[in-house]
């Protein structure tokens, strides 16, 4: 690994690491602008999955034989790599989950069961993904607690004054997205965490959309929980991470029962295993966990300053081009945005635009993006969303704009 920062960002070279980017769709070169849904995988991640099943496959934490030991150490090594990557202090603060949704449900259930009482409040925002709404609705209903929603303005920024007023002695938890998957808004999470902590309110950050665009540092943020999905950060599907401060994880009861999470079981009483295993019942996605290390290795090699500059350039370039289209309205014009753009076009339906662009090889997302309350806030049913990754190019944006114009012409 080179310690020298490489300031020449060679996107064409990076693209070669992602085999899928050279395939065709409907006879046209694929333009993949649906990175917010899931990111593509570099060859090294694909190879890691393959290598695991070809050479190492065995169950972890349970065997004395060589294979099991090799797989266990690879899996635990992956945990330590992820720990270092996100700046966690201890590897036991890094829990493997199925994904962001699973991590949020874990906190909602374990924290909720233990700490929520009638009349307590959980704070989320108007721009949350359904994954950061429904788990809270479920536990709040069960416990007689109240869900409070931080409103947003027309640009798609949180109304911070309202948030500040919302924090009170009944507030038990703040759960907020780092970056909005629909609007691209980058929320001032550090400021919010500090404000919440002043009132002794712990904070869960939904980092699903942040990890593909930046390196996060959970200790610098000082968040209590941080959930994300490996598949959105160029790793395998079916694996996520829930970071939790040890002081919290120690207090929370297990989420699911089963193998691996126990120390001793009798029919009278079970004692739980230590962290992180207390929260990891059953055989996990071993291949995915191990391949996550390959994704982290890949991301460690990236020059994140250059990635940020490149993505900003893509965002600005695409926004400027889109502005020239008659009847196009942006949904989400926050002060600080990630490379995610949602829009609607007068006289057309997002679904129709998506279908026609797909015919031209351009993959975009259409619909409500699992943020129906947010759609309602803007008085729409859905948008077209383009979300860029570092391997996207301006040339691809040019083709996308042509495809979009063509689709609009066909539809109007």
């Amino acid at each position, binding site marked *: 690994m080179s310690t020298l920062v490489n300031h020449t960002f060679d996107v064409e070279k990076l693209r070669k690491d992602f085999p899928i980017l050279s395939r065709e769709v409907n006879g046209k070169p694929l333009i993949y602008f649906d990175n917010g849904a899931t990111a593509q995988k570099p060859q090294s991640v694909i190879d890691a999955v393959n290598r695991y099943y070809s050479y190492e496959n065995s169950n972890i934490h349970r065997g004395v034989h060589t294979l099991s030991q090799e797989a266990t150490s690879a899996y635990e090594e992956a945990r330590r790599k992820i720990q270092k990557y996100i700046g966690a202090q201890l590897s036991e603060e890094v829990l493997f989950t199925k994904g962001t949704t699973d991590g949020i449900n874990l906190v909602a259930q374990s924290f909720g069961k233990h700490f929520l009482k009638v009349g307590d409040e959980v704070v989320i925002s108007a721009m949350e993904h359904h994954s950061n709404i429904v788990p809270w609705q479920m536990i709040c209903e069960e416990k007689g607690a109240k869900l409070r929603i931080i409103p947003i303005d027309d640009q798609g920024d949180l109304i911070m004054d309202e948030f500040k007023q919302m924090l009170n002695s009944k507030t038990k938890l703040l759960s907020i997205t780092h970056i909005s998957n629909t609007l691209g808004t980058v929320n001032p999470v550090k400021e919010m965490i500090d404000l919440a902590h002043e009132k002794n309110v712990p904070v869960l950050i939904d980092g699903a959309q942040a990890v593909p665009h930046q390196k996060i540092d959970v200790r610098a943020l000082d968040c209590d929980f941080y959930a994300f999905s490996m598949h959105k950060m160029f790793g395998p599907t079916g694996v996520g991470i829930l970071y939790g401060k040890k002081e919290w994880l120690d207090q929370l009861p297990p989420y699911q029962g089963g193998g691996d999470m126990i120390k001793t079981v009798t029919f009278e009483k079970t004692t739980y295993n230590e962290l992180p295993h207390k929260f990891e019942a059953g055989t996990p996605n071993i291949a995915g966990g191990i391949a996550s290390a390959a994704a982290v290795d890949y991301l460690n090699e990236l020059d994140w300053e250059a990635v940020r500059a490149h993505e900003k350039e893509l965002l600005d370039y695409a926004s400027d081009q889109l502005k020239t289209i008659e009847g196009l309205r942006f949904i989400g014009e926050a002060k600080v945005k990630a490379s995610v753009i949602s829009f609607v076009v007068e006289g057309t*339906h997002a679904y129709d635009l998506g*279908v026609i662009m797909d*015919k031209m090889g351009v993959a975009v997302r*259409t*619909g409500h993006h699992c943020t129906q309350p947010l759609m309602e806030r803007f008085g729409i049913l*859905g948008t077209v969303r383009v979300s860029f990754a570092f391997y996207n190019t301006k040339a691809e944006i040019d083709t996308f704009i042509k495809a979009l114009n063509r689709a609009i012409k*066909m539809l109007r």
Partner: protein
Amino acid sequence: MSINERQEEVIEEFSMFDDWMDKYEHIISLGKELPLINDAEKKDENLIKGCQSRVWLAADLKEGKVHFTADSDAVITKGIISLMIRVLSDATPAEIAEADLFFVDEIGLKEHLSPTRSNGLVSMIKQMKMYAIAYQTKV
């Protein structure tokens, strides 16, 4: 004309197009021409919620034959609806209930009936058949 004869007719019509653009332009124009459903029928009971587009469907039994009207907010969905109505409407409940809609595959629109599209079309066809089955007891 039987449902199968109508399907053959649609297949014949679509065989003229050799590229996707022409085909989609045709579907879009069918969508734009689809006679609108009665406003009174655009009520929630008739709404089929797809994740991506919404579809309204109403049915009516006249002289032993089922008549469908439908609408959608997405024009491509609407164009495909128009084909469905052309094929299935004005047929007996028994014929509709048993219909095998082979034309969709033949004209290369199968992808629109895939569940991942969530455009409401799959549910609409199911609903059309449900109406037909329900009407079978009335004729």
